[in-house]
């Protein structure tokens, strides 16, 4: 158990380096020319399922469409971020899309697309309440991106009772 904790810490230190711009070359970037890589898309689909559980449509087809729309909007959002923020996000997503990064940073064993909502939520809790700032920062970033992208579209507004702006 102790050995495992040490390993984890080593990985997270590596992650700190990566985010600081050091070891980043070892990773597949999460953004390619400012757009989401295929694995980053899978990551956000999985995160969306877990974060938006209870808000997403109950019907399976409708839920799938809602998540796909959210991923498209995240892609647009990423393209509009300044280069330095894109680089940071790219490294974070790249790291989360590797098995060691997923385990070290998110504490998640199965691949994102295979993980259940409960498993992803447990991983999110681990980051959210971590004593390491890097893991907390990662949680905050993912929470903001998913929530922001999902609720920016009017298709999501009825779920929160927002009627939309007054038509002028």
């Amino acid at each position: 158990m102790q050995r495992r904790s040490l390993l984890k810490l080593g990985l997270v230190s590596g992650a700190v380096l990566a985010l600081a711009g050091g070891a980043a070359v070892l990773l597949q970037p999460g953004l390619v020319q400012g757009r989401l890589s295929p694995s980053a898309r899978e990551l956000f689909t999985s995160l969306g399922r877990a974060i938006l559980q209870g808000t997403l449509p109950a019907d399976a087809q409708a839920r799938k469409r809602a998540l796909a729309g959210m991923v498209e909007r995240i892609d647009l959002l990423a393209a509009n971020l300044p280069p330095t923020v894109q680089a940071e996000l790219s490294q974070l997503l790249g790291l989360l899309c590797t098995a060691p990064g997923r385990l070290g940073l998110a504490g998640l064993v199965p691949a994102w697309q295979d993980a259940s909502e409960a498993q992803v939520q447990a991983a999110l809790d681990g980051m959210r309440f971590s004593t390491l700032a890097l893991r907390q920062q990662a949680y905050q970033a993912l929470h903001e991106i998913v929530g922001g992208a999902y609720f920016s579209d009017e298709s999501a507004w009825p779920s929160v009772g927002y009627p939309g702006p007054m038509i002028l």
Partner: protein
Amino acid sequence: MSNFPDPIRAGLERGWKVLGGAHGALPEKITCDVAIVGSGAGAGITAELLTQAGLAVVIVEEGPLKSSSDFRQRESEAYPSLYQESASRKTADKAISILQGRCVGGSTTVNWTSSFRTPDTTLRFWQERLGLTDYSREGLAPYFEQAERRLHIAPWLTTPNENNALLQRGAQKLGIAASVIARNVKGCWNLGSCGMGCPTNAKQSMLVTTIPAALDKGATLLVETRAEHLVLGGGKVQALRCVAVQANGAPVVAGQVSTTIVARHFVLAGGAINSPAVLLRSKAPDPHARLGARTFLHPVVMSAAVLEQRVEGWAGAPQSIYTDHFMDTQPVDGPMGFKLEAPPLHPVIMATTMPGYGQPHADMLAKFPHTHVLLALLRDGFHPQAPGGQVKLRSDGSAVLDYPLTDFVMEGARRALLAMAEIQFASGAREVLPVHERSHPYTSWDTARSAIAALPMKPLLTKVVSAHVMGGCAMAATEAQGVVRADGGHWQIENLSVHDGSLFPTSVGANPQLSIYGIVNRLAQGLAQRLTGRAVALG
């Protein structure tokens, strides 16, 4: 497309000189009397006054020129196009989210219209502790009056929306004085969409007032153009180098200067964080290490409440009621005081601000129409343990604010969460949620009080945001204390002034737009006098 007249499109049709982006290529070199960096509160006032004095002015804005026809009251369009870093700007440790405008009109295009003169307590501190003897209430009053007239600033006499009425009722129940906020609006439709750009042109932002006035008098506006650095020589600014930027701020052509502006005088008014960053990139003299230091945020914490009745925080004028009770009842240099206001609520802001995920988050959001939110602006910069942050440059020259949230600041945040919860229960809240990762909705004031007392008030657990960036180019009575003199002129660089919120030597202790309008009004009149010998006043 809205059915309202669009004064910007009309101006462009009349032949305003606007270049950059789709408006036309930037010339290699521009010569003028005064170059102004930025187009927000300080830049707008300065541009109107200097053009009135007959000076040839060039305004440089990094963001796009958007106007009422573009403002469709949608967060999905407003945040990416009108805000710095798509409204996701963060401090270095990512513990504070910063909302700052990046478009023609700057933050005035997207702010919530709250207008306060600089509080007397703040001015007294500047005079008595910092030696800024010109900054008296009486001395500034005529400049505030002019700005208020020019921008139609008056108390909001329409019935407050329910989100604000709740603050009024809760405060009243507890015997706390709450007052009406003055707003810079003319014929306001009471929509509540101020933060996404005013679709009716009622908000008297710089976008529809001073910038058009300056353009009508022949000023040139460069948009989607970033002021990269000043060329310094012989104690003066020789030129300003600018680059054309894409929508995300990346240069259109990497590493290439797009235009060079040569002027008699230069005014930095790109807002706190960006103005000090231009000076840092320019390697401006900074013998006393004051540049970028003492940058303030009015760190904000929030408390959400659920009411039995509908609140509809998206509808109606945002921030029309406030209380200064928690600033006025304690010394300015003691434990942090705070101002309470009730912000507008829209789905993206709501979903990203409310902590947690899954079913509990969904349950909270399902109550959105019944949700009321209060925010507390903490008054930083008056105590040694609230020294604000430091603007730094990343390796690519972009700016980042390092703002450590000290235990002293977080102690104020805890008192603010307590005060807001108490007011919310007094106003009839069924449940109150302090916005913190470790909190839960509490159903009584007693439970909330003990829970808040036990919350770990740590960065990244406590949600902290800011929409008021101030300081970093502080004006000072002596060279050792600041970056610019009391008249806005740079201590070491002869033909350079700073005319924006980065001037403030502490935070303001109130929403800063009117402080910038009033103080810059005086500074710009002085500058016009020095450059032309002519006396001008805000029209």
